[in-house]
């Protein structure tokens, strides 16, 4: 049995809700518990920026139990960006802090009449005045609130920056000086509630059924990670060559995902900076170009080694034994106003590298800190900038529209100024601050052809023309445009077939098979989506997930931590239920799932004329339908079938 905290910001009422054990057995915690409560409690027609929307901060079932790579927290809400289910995932220290306050989740409804923050410790929860930090950026606010509230325990703080205060629909929620739960527009929901921050200083113990059994699994996993060590001879400049080799492979064979840990340890996600360009994974020039355009003279400047040259120490999220993060010195960058920044992720480097044809790495560092402080999603912001540049290059936007900004490809100085305008909602920035779909609606003039999104959300920096299953998740997931749900590349290293009876076994296969809407590909995407829900319900890390089930023993940890004795197949049914609940949330709120289908460019319509993805197209609608069919949902509409809902115990009317 656990509990969640409910805070009504309109009335100031704060109360606990006890959650029965049976609920955890149905949906785990984390995103599953969030889906259970929000499906039940957000009324049909609720304005995402109104008092009826609920914003939840949830921690994972495994967080704090002694398991590893399970320290991720999530926000859950009705997304103002897509109109449907919204969630976003983040690391740092907030996930255990939620549980150390005695809760599995903290949920807000209503709207405060002035800026407030929530403070929670062992004695209870209080709403406090946040007027003195309203208008400040996320990092400065975190420092102030941490100092004000640090008595015994250093508090963990989740906070919004200026972008969310100004209700940018591509704003997120930050913690640990620049980590960000960026997607779905959760920041705008928090801003609309005038909730500036959540400050957590509890010191309660976190329950675990069998700590010794959990530790035994952790030791085994940690030993494997410890042994992974990249020879010093391997340089970042070699990685693009590897990408070029992969781009030309006719056949695909699964690799041992544990090898990824040595790459993460050395570079973090920026290991992909050049490699993903040459293999065709990075979308180039707003999805209309390739490595032929963003060639070596460009990508050599964002080389992985150049990124970590600025790194002066590694950064680990809570319970992480890999340490893909880092803290970088940027005191000599730009105007010198920022001293340091979290190492930019691959997503940020790609969104402000190849996507906008920029080769100025210092500009990427600067933009990274600018966005982290303002609390704006770097994926969506990069998409919005690329969209604006393409509109400008095609005469849809003029100098008059841009306030004199010369929005040509790769003009890093103009890009920085544009981002500042977006954060402050000034001029052209105001048009773009809510993402490309709404931006195109405002600009008109057929600009929607350059507005690359799925269901209103800009996609991650992974090309669905390289990995069609990525495209299925971009289009068919209840939160469209997300690169973190599944992909063939993820499936092949996660190796679900080693534990799950129905997950297709992968050996060597022709790459072309990925482009066919088959039962096998659909079962892979369904298995990936179910498993990812389990990961998100446990507080797990995507990067640990793709190291493989034979190494990162999620099923073993879940049984040890809870005392359950479930098989992997039984857990996968929990994952299926969680995903179905998220989909039913969308159905309840009037979303027609097919409308989330990704932009035609993302499916290769028209196909690229050069580069490694030349001629590639994805039968996305047929693949979405196969995916839905194997979920037990109507294959034409994506609506879960009554018999599926009955089997899973999900009420069709949205009562949980």
């Amino acid at each position: 049995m656990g509990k969640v905290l409910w805070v009504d910001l309109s009335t100031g009422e704060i109360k606990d809700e006890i959650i029965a054990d049976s609920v955890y057995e149905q949906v785990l915690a984390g995103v599953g518990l969030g889906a259970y409560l929000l499906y039940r409690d957000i009324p049909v027609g609720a304005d995402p920026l109104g008092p009826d929307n609920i914003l939840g901060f949830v921690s994972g079932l495994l967080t704090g139990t002694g398991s590893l790579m399970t320290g991720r927290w999530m926000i859950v809400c009705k997304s103002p960006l897509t109109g449907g289910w919204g969630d976003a995932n983040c690391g740092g220290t907030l996930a255990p802090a939620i549980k150390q306050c005695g809760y599995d989740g903290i949920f807000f409804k209503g709207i405060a009449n002035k800026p407030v923050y929530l403070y929670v410790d062992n004695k209870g929860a209080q709403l406090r005045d946040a007027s003195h930090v309203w208008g400040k950026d996320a990092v400065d606010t975190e420092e102030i609130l941490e100092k004000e509230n640090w008595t015994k325990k250093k508090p963990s703080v989740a906070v919004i920056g200026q972008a969310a205060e100004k209700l940018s629909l591509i704003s997120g929620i930050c913690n640990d000086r620049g980590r960000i739960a960026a997607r779905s527009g959760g920041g705008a929901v928090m801003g609309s509630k005038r909730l500036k921050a959540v400050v957590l200083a509890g010191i309660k113990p976190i329950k675990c059924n069998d700590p010794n059994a959990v530790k035994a699994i952790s030791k085994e996993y940690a030993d494997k990670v410890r042994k992974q060590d990249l020879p010093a001879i391997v340089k970042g400049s070699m990685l693009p060559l590897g990408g070029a080799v992969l781009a030309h492979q006719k056949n695909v064979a699964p690799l041992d995902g544990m090898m990824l840990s040595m790459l993460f340890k050395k570079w973090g996600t920026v290991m992909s900076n050049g490699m993903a360009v040459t293999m065709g994974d990075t979308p180039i020039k707003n999805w209309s170009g390739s490595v032929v355009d963003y060639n070596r003279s460009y990508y050599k400047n964002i080389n992985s080694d150049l990124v970590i040259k600025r790194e002066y120490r590694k950064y680990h999220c809570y319970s992480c034994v890999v340490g893909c993060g880092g803290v970088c010195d940027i005191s000599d960058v730009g105007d010198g106003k920022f001293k340091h920044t979290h190492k930019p992720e691959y997503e940020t480097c790609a969104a402000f590298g190849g996507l906008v044809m920029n080769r100025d790495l210092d500009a990427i560092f600067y933009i990274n800190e600018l966005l982290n402080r303002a609390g704006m999603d770097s994926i969506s912001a990069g998409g919005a900038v690329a969209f604006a540049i393409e509109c400008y290059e095609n005469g849809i936007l003029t100098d008059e529209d841009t306030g004199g900004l010369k929005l040509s490809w790769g003009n890093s100085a103009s890009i920085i100024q544009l981002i500042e305008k977006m954060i402050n909602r000034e001029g052209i920035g105001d048009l773009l601050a809510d993402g490309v779909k709404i931006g195109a609606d405002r600009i008109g003039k057929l600009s929607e052809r350059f507005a690359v999104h799925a269901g209103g959300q800009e996609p991650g920096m992974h090309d669905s023309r390289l990995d069609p299953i990525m495209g299925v998740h971009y289009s068919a997931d209840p939160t469209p445009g997300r690169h973190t749900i599944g992909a063939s590349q993820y499936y092949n290293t996660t190796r679900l077939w080693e534990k799950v009876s129905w997950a297709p076994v992968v050996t060597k296969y022709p790459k072309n098979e990925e482009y066919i809407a088959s039962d096998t590909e659909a079962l892979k995407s369904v298995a990936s989506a179910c498993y990812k829900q389990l990961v998100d319900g446990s507080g797990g890390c995507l990067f640990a997930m793709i190291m493989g089930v034979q190494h990162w023993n999620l099923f073993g940890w879940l049984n040890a931590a809870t005392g359950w004795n479930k098989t992997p197949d039984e857990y996968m049914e929990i994952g299926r239920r969680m995903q179905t609940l998220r989909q039913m949330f969308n159905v309840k709120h009037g979303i027609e799932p097919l409308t989330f289908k990704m932009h035609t460019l993302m499916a290769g319509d028209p196909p690229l004329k050069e580069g490694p993805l030349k001629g590639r197209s994805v039968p996305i609608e047929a693949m979405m339908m196969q995916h839905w069919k194997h979920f037990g949902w109507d294959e034409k509409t994506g609506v879960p079938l009554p018999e599926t809902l009955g089997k899973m115990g999900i009420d069709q009317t949205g009562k949980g």
Partner: protein
Amino acid sequence: MAEGRVVVNYAQCMACGICVQACPFSSLEMSRAINNKYKKVFPELSSRSACSGCGICATACPLECLTASKE
């Protein structure tokens, strides 16, 4: 004044930070820079340590590489 002492086995520690978060007094911090190729930092008692030697950090460590004692 801190009354407790924590010894970390840095050969085994993997800088996961579980001990730091577990400490009810935030007496530990990730600041110990040991010469290592990845520039990782490891836990150590902080300058504002109020360590009582309670051992909560040691119990929390999944790799069992901390020991805590009263001075």
